[in-house]
């Protein structure tokens, strides 16, 4: 059997086809780079996505700080992770790259700040 998908690795959006036989990936086609091949394989076996969101800052100059997952998270956990981030509140000062939440939902992935804020 084969599975069609659109690559999300970059803005180009290549149409990919993955050939699968007995739960094994036989071939990936349609990709124009190596990242497309990796994306197609991961999408069939363990789809992942980067998570971007915001987290409340209780004493910051900015009321919220933008954050992202340091590495892609399992796709099926995205909503649960977003819900987890809505529960927490952090304290300023915060620098870019600071770990906001360590090992979110036991995934082994940290949530890090993508901007900085000073104290109010």
């Amino acid at each position, binding site marked *: 059997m084969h599975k069609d998908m659109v690559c*999300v690795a970059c803005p180009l*959006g290549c149409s990919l086809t993955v050939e699968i036989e007995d739960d094994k990936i036989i071939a990936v086609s349609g990709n124009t780079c190596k990242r497309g091949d990796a994306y197609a394989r991961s999408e069939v076996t363990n789809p992942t*996505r980067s998570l971007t969101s915001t987290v409340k800052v209780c004493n910051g100059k900015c009321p919220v700080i933008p954050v992202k997952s340091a590495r892609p998270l399992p*796709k099926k956990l995205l909503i649960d992770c*977003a819900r987890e981030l809505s529960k927490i509140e952090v304290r300023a000062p915060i620098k870019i790259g600071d770990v906001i939440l360590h090992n979110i939902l036991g995934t082994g992935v940290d949530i890090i700040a993508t901007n900085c804020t000073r104290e109010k």
Partner: protein
Amino acid sequence: MPGRKVVILGSGDIGLIMARRMTFEGAEVKLVCELMPYSSGLTRNIVQCLNDFNIPLRLSCTVVGVHGKERLEGVTIANVDETRKPIPGTEEYIECDTLLLSVGLIPENELSRGMGLTLDRVTNGPVVNEYRETELPGVFACGNVLHVHDLVDYVTLESQIAGEGAARYIKGEVQPAEYVKTKGINGVRYVVPQHVNRKSESDVKLYFRVGDVYKNARVKVSCAGKVVSDKKKPKLAPGEMENVIIKAEVLNAMKPGGEITIQVEAI
């Protein structure tokens, strides 16, 4: 968040990303409506902002009515024909408490207009030179006031160009310019900057946008009728800004009042 059940009108990148954003914040995005028969957003955003969360995208469809008094209670949507007019009989009521409008941006030009600057009819922003200086010496424009950008990276780059121009102006380093015009033809909707000093000592990057979706097209740049660059592009879309570099020596060889044209050729 002020709402829980959301309908989004407009499927550009902002509309698509807002659908995911509001889903993460706990809202139920019921539908994204798009007037055109295609989304102007990136395909990757349709995949990771809508498909990942099973949010439907209805093309050739618009909001024709809003209901509720103190608070929105629902909207009526309808399909549209090729002329973008709602088709009677296709109306459908959708219960929601929020309608998010993501229907395009227009440069805010109250200041530019007040100063009497000439506005480009396509970009809706002032006409500028390669340093993003308007027709009024010492007045510079950049960012979404000049033309609407898709990527913030381009806004940053443009602000640096305008900043450099402003610094040169303040230091009195600006020599009288001899301008050549830039022009988009055959599918290229606009070019920024609109004119360039032909005596420029450095290469100049021209930014442009196409008016339609192209697959495997060529972008041809001509200076005073002579083709100076002809590049193949796997994909061109109205939502994605493109750029070409004009070499200083090419500019220097042009005559004052000459024209640089950028065009698309489908293969």
